[in-house]
C-alpha cells in the first residue's frame, strides 16, 4: 500500500470527523442538530444485512429527504412511545473507498451500545456505514448514509437513528 498523500489524509480526516460528529449528536441526544449533517436531498437508511445481502431493499428506517430525518426526530420527541434509553456509538476507523473533488465514498464499522433506565448496557446494533459525503460546500454533509446492520434481531424497538 502506497503512502497516502496529504490530500488523501485530509479527505480521510473529513470523513472520519463527520462520522464522529454524527455519532456524538445521536449519543448526546442532540438529535435536532443531526439532520443538519445531511444535504437537503439525501438518503438515509438503516437496513439489515439479512435483507441487503439478498438484494432486498426493505429497510428498518428509510428516508429520502432531510425533511424525513426531521420528521423522525419530531416523531421521537412528540409522538412515539418507547422505553427510556441512551445509545453509545463505538466507531472503527473510517476507510475512504474513493473520492473526487466533490464526493467522498467511505465506510466505517460501528457498534451501538444501548443503556436502558435499569442501568444495564447491551450490544444493541453492530454493523457498517457506507457513506457518500459531499465536501464541496461550506461544510461536509452526507448525500447518503446507509447503516447495514448484522444484528438483525432488534431488541424491542428502534426509534433513534443508528
Amino acid at each position, binding site marked *: 500500500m502506497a503512502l497516502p498523500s496529504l490530500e488523501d489524509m485530509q479527505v480521510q480526516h473529513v470523513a472520519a470527523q463527520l462520522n464522529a460528529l454524527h455519532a456524538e449528536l445521536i449519543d448526546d441526544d442532540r438529535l435536532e442538530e443531526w439532520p443538519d449533517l445531511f444535504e437537503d436531498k439525501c438518503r438515509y437508511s438503516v437496513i439489515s444485512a*439479512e435483507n441487503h445481502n439478498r438484494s432486498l431493499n426493505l429497510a428498518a428506517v428509510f428516508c429520502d429527504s432531510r425533511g424525513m430525518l426531521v420528521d423522525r426526530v419530531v416523531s421521537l420527541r412528540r*409522538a412515539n412511545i418507547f422505553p427510556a434509553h441512551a445509545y453509545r456509538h463505538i466507531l472503527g476507523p473510517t476507510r475512504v473507498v474513493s473520492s473526487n473533488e466533490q464526493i467522498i465514498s467511505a465506510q466505517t464499522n460501528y457498534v451501538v451500545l444501548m443503556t436502558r433506565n435499569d442501568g444495564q448496557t447491551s450490544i444493541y446494533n453492530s454493523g457498517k456505514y457506507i457513506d457518500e459525503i459531499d465536501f464541496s460546500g461550506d461544510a461536509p454533509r452526507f448525500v447518503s448514509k446507509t447503516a447495514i446492520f448484522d444484528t438483525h434481531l432488534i431488541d424491542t*424497538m428502534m426509534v433513534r437513528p443508528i
Partner: protein
Amino acid sequence: MVTAQQTDNVKQDTPAAGCRVPYRVFTDRQYYEREQENIFKGECWSFVGLEAEVPQAGDFKSTFVGETPVILTRDSDGGVHVVVNRCAHRGALVCREMRGNRPSLECVYHQWAYDLKGNLIGVPFRRGLKGQGGMPGDFDMSQHNLRKLRAESVGGLVFASFSETVESCRDFLGPIVVEQIERIMCKPITILGDQRQRIFGNWKLYAENTRDPYHASLLHLFHNTFGLYRSTQTGKALMDANKRHSLLYSIAASNDDAADKQAYGDSRSFDTEFKLQDMSLLKGRQEFADNVTLVILTVYPNLVLQQIQNTLAVRQTVTYGPDEFELVWTHFGYEDDDAEMQAIRLKQANLIGPAGLISMEDGEAVEIVQNAIVGEARATSYIAMGGGQADDADHLVTEGAIIGFWDNYREMVGFDLEPT
C-alpha cells in the same frame, strides 16, 4: 390479600361483567410448557412462511412452530413440506442456515441425508466398513424419517400442524379468515424483506394487542393524528365461529376531523400541532376496491396478516420462553407493482416493524405489562370494553376478540395450574 371473589374469578367461567385473566399465565413456566404441548404441538395450525419464500424446488427456510425448530421446503413436484429440524439419529439440527437451496437435507454430524419431504435416504457406513460395524440387520430406513408435520397452503400462506386429528387448515381458519387471506393474496406476491424484533414479554400479550382496536388510536399517535386509524372510523371487529381468530378493519375515508377531534378531546394521541415536513411518507394509493385501508387479521396462535395503507406483511410469533418472543415481519408487494408502487411500499415500511413509527410502540406496550406483573400469583387483568363478552362488533371500541382468544386458551391450556 386475595379475596374469595378474586380467586373465584380465576377459576370460574367468564363472569358477565368482563373477562379476568390471571397474570401468572404470562410469567409461569408451567403455562408456557403446556402451551407448547397443547397449542403449538396440539390441535392447531401454525403459520410457518409464505410460499413465495420457497419458490423453487430445493428452496428451504428454517423457522419455528412455537419454540420447535422446523424446516419449510419445496420439493421437485412443487409441493411444500414442513419437518422438524432435528436429525432422526441423535438430534442435531439438520438445517443450520436461515434459508437456501439444496437437493436434499443432510445432517453435518454423521451425514444422514433426507429428501425434501423428510424421508431418510442415506446413512453413511450403514453396512459397515471392511465387514466391521454397520447398523443392525433389522435397521429400517423408513422408520427414521424426519418428523413430518401436516402442511397446507391457503392463498400462499403455509401453515403446519403436529396434529393428525386436527380439522383441515381451511376449516381451522374458517370462512372469514380464508376470505381475508384471499383478499390480500389476490395475485402473485414478491418478497420485499424481513424484519425481526425481540420483545421481552409473553407472546400472549401480543396476541391480546393485535386483537385490540381499543388501544390502537390511544397508544399510537401516528394512527390517530394522521387519521390512518381512529376508533371513530367505520370498521368492524369480527371473529371466526370459534372466536380464535380476529379481523379488525377500518376505512380511513370515513374520517371526520372536526368530530374526531371532539371525540378525542385533549388526548395525547390526537395532536393537530404535529406536522410532517415531508408528507410523501403518507402518500399512497387506494389499491383495494372495498376502500378498506387497515386490516389486522390475527390468526390463532401465531400469525398476523396486515394491510396498513399500502404496507402488506405477515408477522409470525416465535416463542423463546414465558417472558420473551420474536416477531418476524415479512413484507411483500405484488409481482405487478410498478416502480412507483414499489417505492411507496418501501417508504411506508417506515410505519411498521421494530422501527415503525406506529408499530414500534407495541413492543413497549407488551414490556410494561410484563414488568408490572412479575411474581404475581393471583391478581388478574380486567377486560370488558364493548360489553365484556366475546362478541363481534360493528364498531372499534371493543375488546371482544381478546376475550375470544382467552376462551380458546382456557379450553386448550386452562387457567387452573397451581401457582408455583
